[in-house]
């Protein structure tokens, strides 16, 4: 089979627009996911039974459903439901909002587990030492436990961000034009689908390989000796 790459240079501007959508989803997903994930992890570890149970339920639910189903839910049910209540009778373009919410809330459950494991990896002695110094629970968490936990978690959090970057291709199922969907559509119209799929794959491969290489370097730099 002969490849015809000629469609690619001309379509780079359109592909770049798609890449911006991909990056926006990734960025929002990481930021909101981290924020909400930290909250969920703290709730999970809090002495309050109800909070702990709610957080566990949230994480379990999101982790047992395929991302494709989550996207369907947000796109077809939840986001239209909320928007329908807030702005009755309007037909708004909801795909992008649905994707952002879905990825943020979905990633939060994954970040929550990473952060919880990170916090639990800090030894109990550290926590008690903080209390012995006269800090209250919240101060110990903020000043002693979280800084240590974060250092240990950073590589895992970044790896999860790379996974999110790849998973954002699944907005395909709600017909949102991210980088891959744009490439697919161009390939379909021009008739060089194979080339566009391979090109998109190569772009993801290069970006993700470079990024995971950086994470590995960072991991070496960030590794702290276990505090006994």
């Amino acid at each position, binding site marked *: 089979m002969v490849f015809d790459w000629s469609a690619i240079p001309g379509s780079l501007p359109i592909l770049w627009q798609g890449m911006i959508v991909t990056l926006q989803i990734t960025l929002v997903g990481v930021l909101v996911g981290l924020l909400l994930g930290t909250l969920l992890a703290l709730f999970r570890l809090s002495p309050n039974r109800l909070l702990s149970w709610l957080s566990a339920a949230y994480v379990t639910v999101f982790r047992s459903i395929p991302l494709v189903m989550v996207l369907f839910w947000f796109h077809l049910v939840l986001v239209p439901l909320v928007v329908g209540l807030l702005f009755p009778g309007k037909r708004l373009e909801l795909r992008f909002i649905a994707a952002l919410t879905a990825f943020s809330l979905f990633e939060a459950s994954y970040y929550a587990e990473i952060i919880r494991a990170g916090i639990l990896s800090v030894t109990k002695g550290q926590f008690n030492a903080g209390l012995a110094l006269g800090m209250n629970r919240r101060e110990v968490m903020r000043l002693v436990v979280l800084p240590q936990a974060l250092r240990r978690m950073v590589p895992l959090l970044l790896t999860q961000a790379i996974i999110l970057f790849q998973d954002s291709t699944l907005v395909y199922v709600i*017909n949102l034009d991210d980088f891959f969907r744009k490439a697919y559509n161009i390939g379909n119209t021009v*008739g060089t689908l194979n080339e566009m799929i391979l090109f998109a794959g190569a772009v993801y491969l290069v970006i993700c390989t470079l990024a995971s290489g950086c994470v590995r370097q960072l991991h070496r730099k960030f590794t702290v000796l276990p505090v006994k």
Partner: protein
Amino acid sequence: MYPSLLIPLVAVSASAAHGFYLSPFTFHLSPLTTLAAFDFSVFLRPSPESALNNLSYLLVGLGWSLLLALASWVVAFVVGSVVGVMRTLPGRILPFIGACYVELFRNVPLLVQLFIWFFVIPDMTPILGDWFKQQVPPIWQEFIAGTACLGLFTAARIAEQVRAGIGSLGPGQLGAGLALGLKGRQVYLLVLLPVAYRILIPTLTSEFLNLIKNTAVASTIGYVELAQRSASMAETTSRVYEAFAAGTLLYAVLNLLVMFFARALERFTALPGFLGGRK
């Protein structure tokens, strides 16, 4: 409707690009009334495949999901073990090949890999590809592409687990095996791998759960698994809540069942002397 993408792509190009899409407004959502009138009888009404009712339609979809997951698991387990072992071998070349495999399959999105297996590779393989596109029934085309994709994708993850598992055994087991006069291959097959697998059961379980969830990606090439069937039931019946609630519930139940069996397997094979092993 979902395009089943059975027809050569050029012919359906325009519709295919936008066909895989359900608009939220096709359902005329009036949120509260829809929510209040949760209608269970819809599951007993005839489905898009009119011989079945909607409930059976979803259950058959679940069956296709599970079938794809099991077939992919076989591929993933075999390839993953081989690649994982390669990465622990002495020398340069084999570990390097293993590392490249893992990097390649980990750094390309699953959806892109699936499209490569479904669209690109049959076009690139001269004779076999033509046979595949012309002679193999569509559902099996999707199944084979899905199995190759999910199997090799999951293999990269299993390879990492296997490598870590063998690594966690330390050099003692290898040395002991060699001292007993076993050959390298025998040490792996008789000593290292059996122990490693038993240690790895919890992580392998979570990989299998991931694999089940990942089968939903095959809906993008028209494979009739659960997510795809939930969506198409939502479209034909206009009962979005019911269709997706049922689909989600079925995934959750499958998840629970797998976890239950994995726990049992774990207890049954636990190694004395390891954390979490038999006392």
